[in-house]
């Protein structure tokens, strides 16, 4: 266990802000600048509510915070956070994959939302600095509902969160169960072919939307797909969730001509990937999107 007295070794020790006269610090560490940027960026918005100063490093949690009407409590987020529009103008603490600890600490957050395993080392450092954290790691849609409730409570919007979850549940339950479940191949990279295994969100979304992931038995989350395994599985629908191949490219793949999806032209690209990969308030939109693709007739009137 490290001792607090050797504070000089820590990037910014835990209680630094309380002990040192603040004007000097504000100039040195750019807190003023950060706040100013935030205010300029937010335009007409008022200063963050006293009490909660949240930093979100997770796009889906940012979406939740905005969805429950607590967006103005966010004092920092990452370059990847682009929904809703207002999230783009929040002070950026770096990339999702490499957020900057000093920028986070300089914002004096009272809560930092992060995820594992991506932010493991950051989590340890924030714990050392005694900055409260919330780890977002929902494994399925039910867990997303629980997470919305929890995050809503944390930002003081419990009732809004509950009604949001209730409306999402209603929407999810209104998706009918389909008699046929087409085999679906999900491609997340074209060189080499990579797909999603059984433990992934997209796998559950497919199930809810009345589809069967042909790589559901894979133990890896995002395994490399052997091309001949795809041909053998004969998917009825192919979803391209990456930008480097188009429907036309896949239709022209050598040896793929016999695949049902290719023969019947049921290959889809340019889907809104955020609906399918962000476990947040728009996750049910993702299920609806997939259901419409997989069952165009049944969902017409829906």
């Amino acid at each position: 266990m490290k001792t607090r007295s050797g504070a000089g070794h820590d990037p910014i020790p835990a209680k630094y802000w309380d002990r040192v006269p603040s004007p000097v610090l504000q100039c040195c560490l750019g807190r003023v600048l950060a706040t100013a940027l935030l205010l300029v960026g937010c335009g007409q918005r008022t200063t963050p509510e006293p009490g909660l100063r949240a930093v979100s490093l997770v796009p889906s949690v940012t979406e939740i915070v905005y969805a429950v009407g607590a967006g103005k409590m966010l004092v920092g987020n990452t370059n990847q956070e682009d929904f809703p529009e207002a999230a783009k103008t929040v002070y950026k603490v770096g990339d999702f994959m490499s957020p900057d600890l000093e920028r986070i600490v300089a914002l004096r957050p009272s809560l930092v939302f992060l995820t594992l395993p991506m932010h493991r080392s950051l989590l340890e450092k924030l714990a050392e600095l005694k900055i409260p954290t919330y780890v977002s790691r929902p494994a399925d849609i039910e867990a997303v509902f629980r997470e919305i409730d929890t995050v809503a409570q944390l930002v003081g919007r419990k009732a809004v969160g509950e009604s949001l979850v209730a409306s999402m549940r209603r929407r999810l339950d209104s998706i009918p169960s389909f008699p046929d479940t087409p085999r679906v191949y999900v491609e997340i990279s074209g060189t080499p072919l990579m797909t999603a295994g059984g433990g992934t969100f997209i796998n559950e979304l497919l199930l809810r939307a009345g589809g069967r992931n042909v790589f559901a038995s894979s133990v890896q989350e995002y395994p490399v797909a052997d091309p001949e395994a795809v041909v053998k599985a004969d998917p009825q629908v192919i979803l391209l969730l990456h930008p480097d191949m188009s429907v036309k490219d896949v239709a022209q793949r050598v040896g793929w001509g016999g695949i049902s999806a290719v023969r019947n032209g049921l290959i889809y690209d340019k889907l809104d990937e955020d609906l399918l990969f962000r476990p947040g308030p728009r996750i049910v939109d993702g299920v609806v999107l997939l259901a419409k693709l997989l069952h165009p007739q049944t969902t017409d009137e829906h």
Partner: protein
Amino acid sequence: MRRQSLGWVGLVLLLVSASALSIAVGPGGITGAGISSVMNLRLLRLALGIIAGGVLAVVGASLQGLLQNPLADPFTMGVASGAALGASLTLVMGRTAGAFAPVGGFVGALVTMLVVYALARVRGRVTVTGLVLAGVIMSFLFSSLVMLAMILGRRTLGEAIYMMMGHLGAVFTGTTARLFAAVVVLSIAGCGWLFSMSRSLDIMSSGEEAAETLGVDTQRVTKTVFVVSSVLVGMVVSFTGAISFVGLVVPHLVRMLFGPEHRRVLPGSFVAGAGILLLSDVLARNVVPGGLPLSIVTALVGVPFFIYLLRSRL
């Protein structure tokens, strides 16, 4: 002589049995609906494996002879990483550019060749040590840049890993299949060109100065081998990513069978390289569900063999 004939029989048996395994074993099984499509894919994979393994080993053998350096191969020369970077850059530029990844590979390899050449050139002469040092430095730089390109291009880490560690899982469209057909022809021509230089390589193996006193234009031979090697490796890497150790280990194995003469080492290396790469691929794709990057297998086989070589022969 008898030893050499036996060696040839062994190498050909190796290639034939590796090819048979490669055709017979795979996640698609050997019977059932759609098996003809599966077989077509396996034949393409077989062709890719033979060309990749053969080219890497022939280039490794040529470079080792040329540089009188047992550690030379397409990777220590930086050419493979340069090709991987070129291919990665075209990939991250979007799907239209992605179809031109092979072209990016050629360009990357050629640019690396020019940079390494410029770095290694001291007072108008390209020295053997200068080349190897420049190659190692460039190889480090380009590996980092592949990672950087993939991260900035918002690609998956998996893509970067397979680009740097190799695979035979390339999916061909009509266009890339035609491109690959051209690569097959060019690869055989390039290996033939290197083979035609066997005599010069033999002489240069005994030392640059000795070669010059024997009337070999060492600068011209060096340049030609280096350019042909870069083009060969650039083409292969753009389809397979960077596969390690085949180019390093196979030539040593073949020299143990045939002795140091390049007119036997080069064709022997092609056959042995193809066979060993195919066997590695059979292991990589069938042992672990979902498959492994090829360099994991080639390194597991290659490193112990190389340590043995270092201890016993070099």
